[in-house]
């Protein structure tokens, strides 16, 4: 797919989500903007607490107090989801925008059989254009189950009778039940064993390809990201520090934080000396002036403490928010460390 022909399906603009605490607001998501294109898989990475799950919940508007969406836009087909009323939103969810939740183990209702839960999703969220009557429901659910590689028996089973990987695949079946255009998968394989994780990941990719949907994958397993996504959004402390194609992100990450992330990926191809980075983080209620990463950055400069870097495209397919990259008169960017 060429860059010009890509159609955006979801656009997030300057989204801010804060959590209220007695000592002031925690800036969990602090002005993030990105675009999800038709058919792509976008990885959203960062360490725990960086705001990646909050961002996903914000897109789906499932933020509950003390959290609140402070400002921003989430555009889908030109409509700002943040301006919709609860009824319209309810129809959007699952039918246009679906979630495979974190820890699918605990997101199924233990007292309902699998088919009842999938029926529930279909009935509650179906729209005028996508309706199923009773007689169509059963074949549709069986079709969904076979799609995710589950046997027909699962139809009548309870969640406790399923293994973790099977429950996760039931959640994927639910997510695609109404043919959504966008799926958000929040750490959907992180609690699984590697072999099962691979099966679930491959199920997700196959279903995604069959349906032609776009996907946002949230996680911190960089190995899994390398296998699954097209582009990577790197978040640190509520902000996006880099957006790059998966090739750029792994071969020449630009932001110092992305470099730490890539360096700390353990491999089984060679034993290398451990790279230790100290994790001094700022008070999330009181982010520092200037660059968000300055307290941990090995290359911090005076300018980083004064002004927050803007995100700029330093080469095709790689945008980074860092003062280390300076624009030249010819429009290209160079790393200021190269001349020093």
């Amino acid at each position, binding site marked *: 797919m060429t860059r010009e022909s890509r159609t955006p399906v979801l656009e997030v603009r300057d989204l801010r989500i804060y959590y209220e605490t007695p000592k002031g607001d925690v800036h969990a998501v602090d002005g993030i903007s990105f675009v999800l294109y038709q058919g792509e898989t976008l990885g959203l990475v960062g360490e725990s607490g960086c705001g990646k799950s909050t961002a996903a919940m914000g897109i789906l508007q499932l933020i509950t107090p003390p959290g609140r969406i402070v400002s921003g836009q989430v555009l889908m087909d030109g409509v700002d989801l943040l301006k919709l009323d609860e009824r319209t939103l309810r129809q959007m969810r699952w039918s246009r925008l679906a979630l495979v939740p974190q820890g699918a183990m605990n997101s199924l209702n233990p007292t309902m059989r699998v088919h009842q839960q999938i029926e529930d999703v279909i009935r509650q969220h179906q729209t005028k254009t996508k309706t199923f009557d009773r007689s169509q429901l059963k074949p549709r659910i069986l079709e969904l189950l076979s799609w995710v590689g589950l046997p027909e028996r699962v139809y009548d089973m309870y969640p406790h009778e399923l293994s973790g990987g099977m429950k996760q695949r039931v959640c994927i079946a639910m997510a695609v039940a109404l043919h959504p255009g966008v799926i958000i998968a929040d750490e959907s394989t992180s609690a699984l064993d590697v072999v099962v994780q*691979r099966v679930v990941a*491959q199920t997700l990719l196959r279903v995604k390809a069959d349906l032609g949907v776009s996907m946002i994958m949230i996680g911190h397993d960089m*190995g899994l990201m390398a296998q699954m996504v097209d582009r990577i959004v790197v978040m640190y402390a509520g902000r996006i520090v880099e957006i790059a194609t998966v090739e750029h992100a792994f071969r020449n990450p630009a932001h110092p934080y992305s470099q730490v992330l890539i360096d700390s990926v353990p491999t089984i191809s060679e034993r290398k000396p451990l790279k230790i980075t100290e994790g001094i983080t700022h008070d999330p209620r009181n982010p520092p002036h200037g660059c968000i990463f300055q307290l941990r950055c090995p290359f911090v400069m005076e300018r980083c403490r004064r002004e927050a870097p803007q995100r700029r495209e330093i080469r095709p397919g790689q945008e980074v928010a860092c003062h280390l990259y300076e624009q030249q008169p010819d429009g290209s960017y160079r790393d200021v460390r190269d001349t020093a």
Partner: protein
Amino acid sequence: MSEILLEIRNATKTYVQRGSKSKRQIVALENFNLAIPCAPASIITIAGESGSGKSTLANLVLGFTKPTSGQVIYQGQDMAAATPQQQQRYRREVQAVFQDPFGVYNPFYRVQHVFDMVIRNFRLAENARQGRDMIEEALNIVGLHGEDVLRKYPHQLSGGQRQRIMFARAYMVKPRLIVADEPVSMVDASLRAAILDVMMRLRADGISFLYITHDLSTAFQVGDQIFVLYHGAVAETGQATEVIRKPHHPYVQLLISSIPDPDPRVKWQGTVDLPPEEEMRTIDSPGCRFHPRCPQRMPICLQAAPPLYPVSTDGQRAACYLYDQDVKRGKLQA
């Protein structure tokens, strides 16, 4: 041969599952053998998926459960027949670090409290000053400073710092062995290296580790010997680097090939199918546990559980009939 610090001999642990109609005995760990030498200190990895028996093993070593049969022998003493004094010494010399770096703390107390408790319980210090020095020394070993962390509450520290404090706490008691049950799995990737580094530093200080994990890449980076468990039995054992580079058991091969490669140019090859459901192992199901999923299964695999066959000259062994001399020869003739 050097002296043995901890030996596990033919340990089997079964749990009874009572259904409405019947009673089944589920095997969590079967005929497990392990010997940790007194010196040199080493990091011994126990790897396997959930339900493979690795936590059962940790619980046996820590004395939280007793084996159904078999023995846990510490410096020549069978712990089932140990005197209270011997047990007390064992509890001091075998320490534990657990998975959840938040759950082990009482959120109402400052970090200082964790250390005060250890000093009091094991009567480590004669006076307050000596106690302070011990705490500082232990914190320095894990790369922290008392002034930075002692006055803080657990929630003010990162997961990596909390976990390193747990290692410092264990270190203060001067243990011979630390059972580390998934110590890095809940810590962010960028902070994991610091914890693995602490393990390597303590090993250099003469402390051995029973490192329980499902993450083979960290085992590859720091581990010495490895045991890969499948459904309660050892599938393969040997040097961690060798087993991971050249796995022989079909399960271990599948496991290694499923680790996502952090290189977008190297994608997973082919697809894997899981059996529709995993049967729980009962005491009376014979044969190899991996048989239902094995791509190379043979009739012999159902007759009895395969013993560990040597597959290399440096002590690597795999529990698979593919490496049985008779089977190999039979195959060649056929």
